[in-house]
């Protein structure tokens, strides 16, 4: 029924359009010969005013979007390095919003102010080296600041200082799911290769490698709060991307090679659930879900695939749980080691 309605509306719209077009045609025949092709002062006036109106509408819409949509964006970072990234983000955003708010009014304002008419004569100006220098210099100085700050942040994110040895965790990707492998007590991952994948050994871990015995393979990613975690990424088929938006972390998983990224979780799942933005989000989402008759949702961190990887790309996810050290150790003890798994 609704589809029918949409089709009817579309047809009516097309009909209205053709009628409007015909009116233009007929009216142009009545008016003098050039009036429907030649831009005159009346057009300049109308279009100039529309430029000004558009500017007001544009900025109004921008303000409305900030008001309505900012609350939908990601909450505070759940990782240590994410705080630096967010600072850099806020400063860069400040700069670009300022530039946006200055340049758009200049553009549309000038378009309005200097809309053409017969009595106006344009001023002949070829160039002005001082002005050119000014607007080459200002962006250059601002950019120098942004580049320095950006590179420092990048360097801190990619080469963090480690006071304690990071816990090594492998993230393993395949169409269309994730698994995690913990290095266990020796904090060393056993050798693994796609050629060794067989039966329950879905990650192709080499059982002959001593380091693999205490490895632990899981379908959920649990992380202790406050301990650095060094992720090692592998993929067995196509490129996937491990994206954990709440932690400001993303890294491709590339078949045939290994990539890595280190984070330090700073908020447990329980703590994040108390975050006012998350509380509001859960309330919003559950209102929608209730209206559709779906079960209520409880917030969890998530690892999702962010590189096109095939038909179920949109649903390639793994639950991420950040716990206190004690909770994490307890959970870890409940898991089967690789050696135990192979013995079963």
């Amino acid at each position, binding site marked *: 029924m609704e589809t029918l309605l949409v089709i009817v509306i579309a047809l009516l719209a097309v009909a209205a359009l053709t009628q409007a077009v015909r009116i233009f045609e007929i009216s142009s025949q009545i008016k003098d010969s050039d009036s429907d092709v030649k831009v005159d002062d009346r057009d300049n006036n109308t279009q100039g005013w529309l430029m000004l109106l558009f500017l007001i509408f544009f900025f109004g819409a921008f303000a409305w979007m900030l008001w309505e949509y900012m609350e939908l964006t990601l909450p505070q970072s759940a990782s240590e390095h994410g705080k630096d990234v967010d600072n850099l983000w806020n400063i860069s955003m400040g700069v670009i919003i300022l530039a946006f708010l200055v340049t758009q009014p200049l553009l549309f304002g000038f378009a309005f102010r200097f809309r053409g008419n017969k009595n*106006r004569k344009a001023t002949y100006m070829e160039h002005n080296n001082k002005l050119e220098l000014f607007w080459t210099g200002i962006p250059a100085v601002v950019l120098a600041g942004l580049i320095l700050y950006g590179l420092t942040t990048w360097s801190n994110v990619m080469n963090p200082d480690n006071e304690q040895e990071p816990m090594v965790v492998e993230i393993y990707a395949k169409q269309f799911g994730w698994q995690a492998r913990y290095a266990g007590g020796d904090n060393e991952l056993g050798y693994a290769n796609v050629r060794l994948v067989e039966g329950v050994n879905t990650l192709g871990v080499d059982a002959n490698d001593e380091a693999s015995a205490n490895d632990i393979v899981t379908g959920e990613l649990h992380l202790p709060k406050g301990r650095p975690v060094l992720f090692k990424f592998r993929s*067995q088929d196509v490129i996937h991307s491990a994206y954990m938006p709440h932690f400001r972390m993303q890294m491709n998983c590339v078949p045939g090679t290994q990539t890595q990224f280190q984070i330090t979780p700073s908020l447990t799942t329980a703590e994040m659930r108390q975050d006012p933005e998350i509380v509001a989000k859960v309330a919003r989402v559950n209102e929608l879900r209730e209206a559709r008759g779906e079960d209520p949702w409880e917030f969890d961190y998530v690892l999702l695939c962010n590189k096109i990887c095939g038909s179920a790309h949109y649903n390639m996810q793994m639950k991420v749980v950040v716990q206190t050290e004690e909770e994490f150790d307890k959970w870890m003890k409940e898991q089967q080691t690789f050696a135990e798994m192979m013995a079963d």
Partner: protein
Amino acid sequence: MEAHAHHKETFITKYVFSTDHKMIAKQFLITGMIMGIIGVGMSLLFRLQLAWPDKEWPILEALLGKWGTDGIMDPNIYLALVTIHGTIMVFFVLTAGLSGTFSNLLIPLQIGARDMASGFINMLSYWFFFASSVVMVISLFVENGPASAGWTVYPPLSALPQAVPGSGMGMTLWLVSMSLFIVSSLLGALNYIVTVLNLRTKGMSMTRLPLTIWAFFVTAILGVLSFPVLFSAALLLIFDRSFGTSFYLSDILVAGELLSNQGGSPILYQHLFWFLGHPEVYIILLPALGISSEVISTNSRKPIFGYRAMVGSIMAIAFLSFIVWGHHMFVTGMNPFLGSVFTFTTLLIAIPSAVKAFNYITTLWKGNLQFTPGMMFSIGLVSTFITGGLTGLILGDSALDINVHDTYFVVAHFHIVMGLSAIFGLFAGVYHWFPKLFGRRMNKNLGFIHFWVTFIAAYGVFFPMHFLGMAGLPRRYYTNTAFPMFDDLADINVLVSYFAIIGGIAQVIFIYNFFYSALRGKKSEQNPWRSNTLEWTTPVEHIHGNWPGEIPEVHRWPYDYSKPGAEEDFVPQTVPMTEEEMASGH
């Protein structure tokens, strides 16, 4: 009269296998428009899916057949639609449709040449493009669907039919089509470069070239230097797919099958692809900027502000575009130091871009603005160039890119800065040079309506996407319903789709205006915009060789609008300098 005025033309040599640059320009334009309709139409289909994932659309079943059973879109065809949409818009519409049309039309006319250096190679360039388009369209109809690994077709996904059905015959045709396209593009670009360097009329020094020609010239150089690299990337991919090599493949277990490939790197493909891919962005954008420079200056009745700075910034952007490709690959695991280098070079592009933006704005200042539809679209271009360019400062910064890479923030950024700016440049060019293309005028009121609806709808589609990206929503998701955390973004997706549909329908106005005016529009006068450049000294009716008599001599730069002392508010390039002007040097 020149001898070739008597040259007999048949229908075939005039309209089909034409070597006349003006006819070839029209062929590029019409083919580009047809491809544009397909590309935009596809985007409307996947916008239906994204906004209303559960709804059954009979139109989907009608158009997609087995991939739209019961009006529900199949996930694989969704991926195919986004892939082909990207491919068509980037290469077929905004590269060939834009550059092919206006480089062909304007280079000989604005530099004062009778035709391209080689009319035959120019004809070949179009026919390779045509063949490429045909192959791409045919690939839509193969059994397992067209290529669906994204327009960047990263292997291994694009190399393995087991990974996604579109990587079968569809992908093979995609590669064939792109190879033909690259040949077309190289033939065209070489011709443009040679023509600009060798066939300028007397007095047309490089510093007297209109900015359009500068933009086309630099674009052609970019194309010649970067497209061969894409060709090599495609060639190696063809080898991996069909001949069992392992350039991009290593250690792969897909759909339960262990492949024997070893030692290759999928990242190698990305380096090769983006070595073209980033310059490609400017191959698309620079011609649009060139067009808008010309249109804004003419319709401001003022010289373009800072001509030399504009030329310099085109060159700076072109140079930098070759050393920034890595910013597409920050999260591939590349050496962090390399990431730093690419961040540095990428953010530098903001400087010449800012210079261009300010020069456009200053050109408007104290002008006498004539709001022709071409002018409106050019102003729209400057607006989107600024809005979209600014978010580049976020994405070019490796530390920030981590968290919005491959999200809708990126989709918003590149559609605004490259897609919209270039398509507005294309529209500006069509409205402005329509009298030169067809000897007739387009209806201005339809042009105004077309502009405002398109402009507002375009911002309506892409501006809200920034917020989707900041919410962590990945691009290329068939539906966002698999994650409850994205549930409250559904309203934005509906809004975006409404604007997309409105914007799509608005193009009907343009298409109607285009074809109606081409056939039955008002006859144009010789110089309808009172412009300075040489193309308006040619007769309205197209003739072979462009000028019936001698090619005019050029005495000045093209931007003497509202020059003090001149009677009219424009002084064409063919008018000799007065003694006063000679004394002052310009």
